[in-house]
């Protein structure tokens, strides 16, 4: 087990500033997911921790020891690669044993450990096969086996599931989470897939352009995003964003849209935003917070809206329906049979307590 401290890490590729002063503490046994769009520096960070990437400034500490000048093999980390990095000319046993042989383990212990790892991953009957005789999922297991067999203090995963098809990916996600629970090791996992990040992480570190945009527990980020980027990146389908103006609306404040529709803000938000009346803002609301209006009195902080549905996308359990609000397409999440045909009118309610208001000049949530 290991804790990691990264301080003001910088990395340049020629003139590109790939990592811009990252500070990050990772606790013992924590499952941390580095997530972000491609080019955000997440893989570079992971490879820097492994020692595969030279860093330009800053320090990386593992268990209070600065490892900047330590060769990858001396850092006692294990890594699973996106393309599995299996040696095609070695069978599964030798692939898994390869790291143990580097560390000069006695033959008997190698056999025992490989066997144990193979049992954990349910690949005992594959040990004699060559990688090309395995399916994608089996290769993935072997790659993980190669990492766990060494019993390293820190596990690094570089988009390990991105080459698998959707169904397999879900299964492996569960297995990796179980593996973490069983081994209790510190794990750092890189992905661009927000669902993977949400489901696996104890803590998500969301990166953008080489800096940390926001970090914290998955639901924290999901429910309290600090910026439009975080709000838009997490969640599927993506959050709805609409330009609006902050106006006085009776007791409280309201959001006025281009076609003079005004939605009332709840008390808490009104208080917080009182000084910004008259400003242009961006209104953000998730699809699941736009739902069919119930009969009778609206709950506190809810507003209702009569709309015409343009397009429906049934997924089975629920139906995503698009309508236009102030000329902008907005998606709502309805139950399966709430709307049968495009063109139907429906009364929707929006949970304004869960909606966010963004300052368009800084893109930050206010």
């Amino acid at each position, binding site marked *: 087990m290991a804790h990691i401290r990264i301080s003001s890490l910088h990395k340049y590729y020629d003139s590109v500033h790939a990592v811009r002063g990252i500070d990050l503490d990772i606790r013992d046994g924590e499952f941390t997911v580095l997530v972000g769009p491609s080019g955000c520096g997440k893989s570079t960070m992971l490879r820097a921790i492994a020692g595969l990437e030279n860093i330009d400034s800053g320090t990386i500490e593992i268990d209070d020891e600065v490892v900047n000048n330590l060769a990858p093999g001396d850092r006692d980390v294990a890594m699973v690669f996106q393309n599995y990095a299996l*040696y095609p000319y070695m069978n599964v046993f030798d692939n898994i044993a390869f790291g143990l042989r580097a560390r000069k383990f006695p033959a008997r212990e190698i056999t025992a450990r490989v066997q144990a790892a193979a049992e954990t991953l349910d690949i005992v009957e594959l040990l004699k096969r060559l990688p090309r005789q395995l399916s994608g999922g089996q290769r993935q297991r072997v790659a993980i086996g190669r990492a766990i067999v060494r019993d390293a203090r820190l596990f690094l995963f570089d988009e390990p599931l991105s080459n698998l098809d959707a169904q397999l990916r879900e299964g492996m996600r569960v297995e990796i989470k179980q593996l973490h629970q069983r081994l209790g090791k510190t794990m750092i996992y890189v992905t661009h897939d927000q669902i993977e990040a949400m489901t696996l992480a104890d803590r998500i570190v969301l990166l953008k352009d080489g800096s940390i945009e926001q970090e914290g527990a998955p639901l924290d980020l999901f429910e309290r995003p600090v910026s439009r980027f975080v709000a838009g990146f997490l969640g599927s389908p993506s959050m709805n964003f609409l330009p609006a103006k902050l106006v006085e609306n009776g007791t409280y404040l309201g959001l006025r849209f281009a076609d003079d529709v005004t939605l009332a803000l709840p008390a808490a938000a009104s208080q917080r935003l009182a000084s910004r009346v008259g400003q242009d803002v961006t209104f953000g609301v998730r699809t699941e917070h736009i739902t069919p209006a119930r009969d009778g009195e609206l709950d506190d902080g809810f507003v209702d809206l009569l709309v015409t549905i343009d397009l429906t996308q049934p997924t089975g359990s629920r139906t995503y329906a698009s309508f236009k609000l102030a000329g902008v397409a907005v998606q709502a999440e309805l139950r399966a049979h709430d709307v049968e045909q495009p063109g139907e009118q429906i009364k929707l309610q929006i949970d304004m307590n869960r909606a966010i208001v963004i300052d368009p000049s800084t893109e930050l949530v206010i």
Partner: protein
Amino acid sequence: MTVAVRAAPGSSASLWQARRRSLKTIARYAAAVAITVIFLFPVFWIFMMAFKTPDEIFSRPPVWLPADFNLDTFKALVRDGDLGAIWTSLITAGVSTIFAMFFGTIAAYSLARFKTGGRNLAIGILSQRMIPPIVIVFPVFLAYVFLGWIDTFHGLIILYTAFNLPYVIWMMRGYIEDIPIELEHSALVDGWSRWQVLLRVVFPMARAGLFATTVFTFIFAWNDYIFALVLTRTEVVTFPVQVTSWFGQQFVFWARIGAMSMMGTLPIFFAVIVFQRYMVRGISLGAVKG
């Protein structure tokens, strides 16, 4: 645009089409066979010299096939010790290929993975390959005279090594760049040293490229004439030099030329057929992957 109407089977139109198609196939085969015969005829002709009697060689009109395949010429070559030329070629080409492959491959690794010297060094190395042999051999000759290396095995071997290094470096650089770098990263994280990674990951992964490049490097040295002609005299005689030694002022020993050519050529044919898959990449300096 016209719309083709597919005729019913058995109708005259489809018969005509089928006949036309089979005519086309026959024409293709005829052309293929004719071209192959034309290209292989000279090979046949020189190889046959080895089996012909002097009367058959010097007959007008020429005799195409020897009456019986007599092996007198080969016996004569063995008796006169001329087969030593094959042995000499094997040593010089073989040893220089080993050197060029070893030093060239590790240099290629440096270029491929560390971008040592950048693009300019890589192109500089390749352009050395383009210098005409006569231009290389002339100053080398002057240097060898000074060093006393004329007509020595090591002199020829060193020159072949140097001449083939750019080729090996260039080819192996390409083959190494084809190896997913994660395989090396993974081995490094596992705790293997740089040299061990070369030995246990890079070499096995580049195995096909290593073999193919070895074969072509060997062929270049094996087929060389001008370096050996200039740098050797009587002690070190490679097979191409031996072949030309039989072009006398008064008389040409065609039988021996044929026999020696055959022995010097058949192994190369065999190697090329085995490594045909890598041929295009090997001769196009890696530009065409084939």
